[in-house]
């Protein structure tokens, strides 16, 4: 049975994907971060959101 945290995380990611406000690559990284089970730090989110859309190609 998924924890409430996991349930919220799944719905959060689904809603983000549906809204298309965030690049899919970032959503996948958020998914990995939220599934990790560790305490998430703000810096980890900052790192993901600060990445250029489209990956490492600049």
């Amino acid at each position, binding site marked *: *049975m998924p*924890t*409430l*945290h996991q*349930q*919220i*995380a799944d*719905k*959060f990611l689904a*809603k*983000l994907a549906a*809204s298309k*406000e*965030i*690049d899919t690559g*970032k959503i996948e990284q*958020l998914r990995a971060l*939220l599934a990790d089970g560790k*305490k*998430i*730090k*703000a*810096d*980890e*989110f*900052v790192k993901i*959101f*600060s990445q*250029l*859309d489209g990956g490492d190609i600049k």
Partner: protein
Amino acid sequence: VIKLESVHIEEVRGIRKLDLDFRKEKFAISGPNGCGKSGVIDAIEFGLTGQMGRLTGRGTKGLSISEHGPHVDKVKFPDAAFVELRIYLTELGRSATITRKVSSPKKPKIVPADADVAAALAEIAEHPEITLSCRDILRFILVEPTKRSEEIQSLLKLEEIGQTRGALNTAQNRLQSAHATTTAQVLSRRNALLLHLQISTLRSEDLLGVVNKRRKLLELAQLPELTTDTELDAGLSTTAKASDFNKESALRDAKALADAEAEFLTLAKSEITAIVADLTRLEGDPSLLAALQRRPFIERGLSLVEGPACPLCDSPWQNADQLRDHLKAKLSKSEEARKLQESLLKNGTAISEKIIRVAGLLAPVLKLAQGQGETEFAQLLTGWKTDLETLRTKLAAVDKIAALKKRLAGSWLEIPTAFSPGLKAFTEKLNAKPDQSATLDAQTFLMTAQIRLSDYRQGMRDNKAADIARISAKAAYDTYCVVQEDELNALYEEVQKDFSTFYRAINEDDESKFTAKFTPLQGSLGLDVNFYERGLFPPAAYHSEGHQDGMGVCLYLALMKRLFGKRFTLSLLDDVVMSVDAGHRYQFCKLLKTQFPDTQFIITTHDRLWAEQMKSAGLVTAKTSIAFHSWTIDTGPLVESDQEIWEEIAGALEKGKVEAAAGALRHHLEYVSRLLADQIGASPQYRADNNYELGEMLPSVLKRIKEIWGKAADAAQSWGKDGEKASAVERKALLTTCNGAVNVEQWAVNKAVHYNAWANFGKKDFEPVVTAFKELLGCFRCDSCDSWIYVTPRASPESLRCACSGINFNLKTKSK
């Protein structure tokens, strides 16, 4: 996930050696305080998780499992202290054994040692809340909303959610701030480019006009348009690019800085004045900050005011209006604090933007100073620029702004005293340099223009990226908040519904319309309960303490149901059922049976009557319950089971320990007398202190049972049931015989019941006493199911029965 089949405990807490057969069923452990019940719970918890809540929770500083987990006589031999649990994995349909030593709690021996068993144990270890003790209950009910929210969040492991939300919020704020910084940097770089090009706008034709003029002079191809990859110095040879020093441009940079210096004293004057005024207010009234933190709590309180009692602390007021005015005054104070915080951050951001501008003016001059070998001046500028960057960081946090008051109230830019003369001298040196040839001027002009254009382009890219990051973070945070709120509201609704259902089930006689309401607010969870349909009030407002305790148990069960669903297979309730008042115990048993048929509750209670009621209600059976009658440091808990009590007494007598045998018999007789008095409705002389002596309880039980057997015989005769009558008469006769046997030893019994002097008897004197009582008590039990007999209904008995109905005598005489 799991159920318990059995446990073997050795040298753990107050237990020396104990085996319990749980049979995967609900199980009751009863006995007086201090007899080792909680030790069993500790041992099970330890066996499952390696933890003991009583040694690791709040208020347990100085306690540890390694030092205080073993029996006190085995502290130096913790290897001797261990628990062996036989568990059943409900989903896998198989059993496993866990052996865990106090000396190595994190390294249990698991057989079979496969991943499924380890996963099941890991899940249990994640949920220490399977153990609920009496002291844990009230933390759900009688706490302020913020604390309750914390407790429930902790139980449901919601802190992870709060933590994720907090991290998203922090990320959002940081990226917002980063975006503001890049925006200011773009402006600064734009100004530097304009200054160099000596144009007022960055329109393509203006820029290409001044650039192509220099390119023509250098006989370089004209740039037809300005595209994203246009290089203004394209075509310049590597040799020509050896130096980008452009005297005219350098002088303009130095002049721009010198001109700005005059404005430095008044830079961000209005923002500085405002921020200093705000800080002065905060300094003069520290309660403003505290008021800000209390704001949500007070808002909730204000909405709950319904009478002259404070809904937050129950303090009485003259009237509701006066209380409302008081709360409004507090709210007005916290509103003031909130606005103050907003104002501080807003002005801090504005000042930061000015700092970026100053730093933008310093940067080209610093680069020039470094390029021209003006080390001392370059160091001065570097030091100042670094200081300004640090100041900018501090202006982004309220607590750090508060510490800047002194600086902000003075010459906050803290211009180094050597700056002005240094800049002047540097400008003179620049002026003294020979004028550059038109060609060199054109070359360096183009090179510097390209560098600044690149900086500007990079600044814009950074700003765009920062904007995307800011928008992404905000979208993520907003989405998370919405999802979290929806989920938690749904959760609280579910829990609130189950909580109300459970409480109504227990109190169906007088609170059949009970309802409860959770009010989740930011960081708090209010709870109101219906009081006899007079409205919703906090639990402590009108309900008795017993009812509040009952609410605690119901809320726990509702939360566990939500937390585990069908996986709620095991719960250790340590003396928790005492929270249910006497009038509602059968309903409580029914609740556990009907609502949690697949949950194995291991229930301890110090009330033996409660333990018997659990049996009568069918929650547990004689085989799934155990009673401890006492505890000694040498033996641990002494088990009181019908078979074992006589074996224990016989064993003690065999060793010549009459004192131990006498103590055990007396305990047993006291227990059974009280139990039977309740079960058959005996009437000892009433004592307000409920402190009945064996000498008054036992005779009243014997008198009552004789009456009942007489009634059974009369009833059978009235209905013409000769066989039943004969059986009743026979049982009464047997009772009389056994009672006679006791009476034969009356001299000995009297000493016990009146003077408690058995301990001084010899073995030969005491053995007949034991035999006599064993036979006498046998008259009150069913030979088949071994349960004690009881009358029903209790108020006006109509039949005498045992648990299996092997004994079932009608007591109602046929009406004539």
